[in-house]
Each structure stands twice: as C-alpha cells, then as structure tokens.
C-alpha cells in the first residue's frame, strides 16, 4: 500500500525551503507533489511602488546566489526601453561579474551535491575554492554577495587592479582543472552513484519548459548568452556544454565543464577589456513609456523580466520569471520510479533556488 512522506520545508536534504510530498510503494517513488511559497516576499509588488534606483537594490535581493543577474536584467530592460547604449568597458565588467557569479553558484551547487552524496572530501575542496571566488568578488565589488554592480547605463565600479583579478582567475582555473573537475568526472564511485539516476528525458524538458543546465544535460543546446546575446557576449566565444545522458551524472558534467567555460570567458574578457567609461555620464536615465521583455542566462537558466513603464520613475508592472520556477516542477518527472534514497541528489540536481522561485 503506498504511503506519503512529507519532506520539508525545513529538512537537511533540502538546500532551501520548499516541500516535497513523496508517495512511495516500498522504496520506489510513485509521485511527488511540490509546495512552494515559503520565501514569498511580493518583490514584484514592492518594485511597482519604488523608483528604478531603489528597484535595482530590491531585485538584487530576489536571490543571494544569482543576485547580479537580476540587477543586470532589470538594468538592461530599462536601457532597452530608454535606448541607452552602455559604454563598452561597462559591458565587459558586467559580463565579468556575471561569469564570476556563475562560477560561485556552480561551485556552491557542486559542494552541496557532493555533501548530499556523502562525498565530504570534495565538498570541503569545492567550498575552499569557492572562498577564493568570493574573495575575488569582494576584491572587485566590496561584497561577497549582493555586489551592487549594475546601474542603468553601466556598472558602478571599475576594475582598478586587473592583474590581481587575472592572477586570482588563473589560480581558480588551475584548481578547477586539476582537482575539482577530475574529482567529479573520473571518480568511479561518483559516476556509479549518479549514472541512470533522476532521468529527465528531452520530451519532459520540452513539456515542462525547463531551462539552463537541467535542459542542457538532456541534450538541448540552448543558452540565452548565444540565443539572444547581451552585454559583451556577442564579442566573446564560448562552448554550450551539453550531455545526452539525461541523468544526475549529466547535470554534474554540464555544470563542471561550464565552470571551465566561465573561467575562459572571464580571461577573454579581461584580455580584451576596452578602455573608457564604465557607465553613461552625460545624461540621467529617464525611462519612457513602453514595454519590453529582457532575458538573460542566470546560473540556473533563463531569467526574464517583463517591464511596463508609464513614463514615470516607477515601473507600472515588473514581472520576474526565474529559472527555478520552471525547473522545480520537473522534479516530479525526475523522481518517478526512482529510489527514495536517491531523492536528495535528484532534487538537488535541479539546483532549486526557492528565493528565486517564491520572490
């Protein structure tokens, strides 16, 4: 006779607060129902009562892990409406911050994934490396999280010590390539543990509209940085990493190799960093009436903002759709027919961010 186990919203296996009601027959999961909303803060409503300068600070706090991508998306949406051209150096610095954020987010996920699997040594190594990335973010922006990097018309700070940034990036790349990525890709224990676990077919990805590394691990070569490029991405070349295995192993592989791609992107951006201003200085941004959709590639997948302006300094409507809002429902397909003991790593492999989902 099937029984239902409630897991969450606060549970050691869960990264952030949401609830899984798992119906099992023996050890095999028949279905999972998901409840969210435990971190709901009505950020969209708050943003529709504050001006754009305040909203940049507000939307940064949608998430602590992918904070810069939210401010970048809002800033670029407003810039699109207003026809503002960001200086080239500002675009490159924006891109560097976004890739550093992707790096720290993927390392966070890798550490949590290793810990959930019981691979404590790698969890420690990954979090140790992540501290170097956080140090670098603090060197550049002054903060480990919530960098306040983006303004409408550019970025708020310049890279005053490019050599220090490049030295740190080289150190991070070296450790990634020699310790972290091989640990995930060559360890036989790791590979056997996650191969064939948490299958999400390409058809399920299309049905649920899943995005980001979750979709790429099921063979979909889609990345907003190439599909609808923004910031400095049109001028920088990188590979879209995909896997065909559709399982947790594929998702680990995709995120591991994406970290290496992020490092290459940062190096390329630093090597080709244009000179000049980092933000517009001759005009104060005024956002005219109109509507625009702006999408970007956050660490977890596509973020899009739908901005409607009535010509005032306060958005009339600001819709925020985060990648976890479409990825977390796919957990229902991933756990069907799987063992209960695999539930923690399966749901973790979707990289669920409840701050983003609930807003």
């Amino acid at each position: 006779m099937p029984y239902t186990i409630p897991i969450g919203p606060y549970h050691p296996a869960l990264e952030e607060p949401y609830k899984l009601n798992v119906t099992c027959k023996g050890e095999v999961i028949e279905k999972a129902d998901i409840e969210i909303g435990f971190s709901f803060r009505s950020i969209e409503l708050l943003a529709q009562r504050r001006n754009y300068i305040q909203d940049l600070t507000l939307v940064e706090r949608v998430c602590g892990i992918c904070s810069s991508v939210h401010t970048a998306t809002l800033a670029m949406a407003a810039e699109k409406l207003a026809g503002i051209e960001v200086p080239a150096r500002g675009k490159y610095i924006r891109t560097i911050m976004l890739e550093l954020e992707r790096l720290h987010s993927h390392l966070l996920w890798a550490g949590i994934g290793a810990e959930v699997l019981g691979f404590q040594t790698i969890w420690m190594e990954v979090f140790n490396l992540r501290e170097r990335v956080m140090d670098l973010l603090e060197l550049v922006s002054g903060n480990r999280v919530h960098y306040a990097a983006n303004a409408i018309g550019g970025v708020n700070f310049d890279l005053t010590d490019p050599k220090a940034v490049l030295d740190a990036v080289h150190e991070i790349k070296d450790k990634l390539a020699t310790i972290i990525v091989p640990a995930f890709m060559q360890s036989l224990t790791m590979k056997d543990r996650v191969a064939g676990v948490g299958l999400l077919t390409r058809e399920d990805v299309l049905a649920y509209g899943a995005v980001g590394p979750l979709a790429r691990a099921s063979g979909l070569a889609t990345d907003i940085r190439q599909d609808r490029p923004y910031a400095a991405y049109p001028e920088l070349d990188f590979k879209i990493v995909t896997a065909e295995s559709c399982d947790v192993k594929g998702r680990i592989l995709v995120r591991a190799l994406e970290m290496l791609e992020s490092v290459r992107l940062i190096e390329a951006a630093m090597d080709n960093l244009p000179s000049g201003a980092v933000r517009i200085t001759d005009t104060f941004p005024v956002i005219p009436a109109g509507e625009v959709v702006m999408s970007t590639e956050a660490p977890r997948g596509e973020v899009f903002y739908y901005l409607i302006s009535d010509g005032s300094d306060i958005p009339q409507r600001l819709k925020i759709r985060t990648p976890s809002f479409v990825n977390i429902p796919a957990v229902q397909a991933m756990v069907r027919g799987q063992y209960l003991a695999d539930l923690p790593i399966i749901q973790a492999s979707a990289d669920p961010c409840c701050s983003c989902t609930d807003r």
Partner: protein
Amino acid sequence: MTAPKLVLKNLSSAPEWNLEHGVWFTTISGAEIVAAVEQMLAQNARLMGITGLVKGDETQLVYHFSAQDEICSIKTMTFRQHMPSITPTTPAADWAECEAQDLFDVTFDGHPSPRRLIRPAQLEAGFYRQPGGSASKPEQA
C-alpha cells in the same frame, strides 16, 4: 521585419504582430488562447511564463514564448476573470496559472489541479490587484 518566424493561423481575431524593442506582441481573444498556444508549441516555441496585469475589473494575461532568438508575447483579456486553462495542453503552464490565480484572482477553467501555490494562506487571492507606476505614489497635499 513585419512578422516573427512563428505564425498564428485560422484564428478569428486575425492577430497582427507588432515589434517593440526587439519583442513581438499580438493580441487575441481569450476564447482562442488554447488554439493559439497549441500552434505555438507545434512550432517548437517554449512557454516562458504568463504575466498578469490589472485592467479595471478584468486581468490582461500575457503569454510569453521563446523560439531561439525570438520572443513572442500573446496578450489576451479575461472574461469575468475567467480564462481557459492551457495546462492540459502543456504542463509548463501549471505553476504559471496557479500563480496568476493567487496574485490576480483569475480562474483558469479546466485546470486539472487549481491550488494555492505562492500566496501566503493569510492573504486572499488577488492581492496584487493594486496600482503600480505613478498611480502607486501617494497623493501629495
């Protein structure tokens, strides 16, 4: 360009696409939303999400679709706060419709499991039905 690569055919509202800041918009009747979404999905478009906007006593729902380098948004209006559900057509709409129900008090007819998703239990559905933009500023004396 006068139209996106994605096309909508055989709809009585004969939608025309307008390009605004790189995004295609069109408006159709709410009664045809299921047919329109089926056509979009058949052309391999991905449903990105559904946005609700307060329009008097009704709600304008904007269905956003992504097809590689294009974003196409279909606008439609509720009738007495009702809209046919597209969740039976695509599971990607499940949470988006539940969210619109929570925030704007829209009823999606035919939704297989309408439920409170994102709304705190203490709040009534439709608490996002408040003015934004300049109308949200308190009146100055």
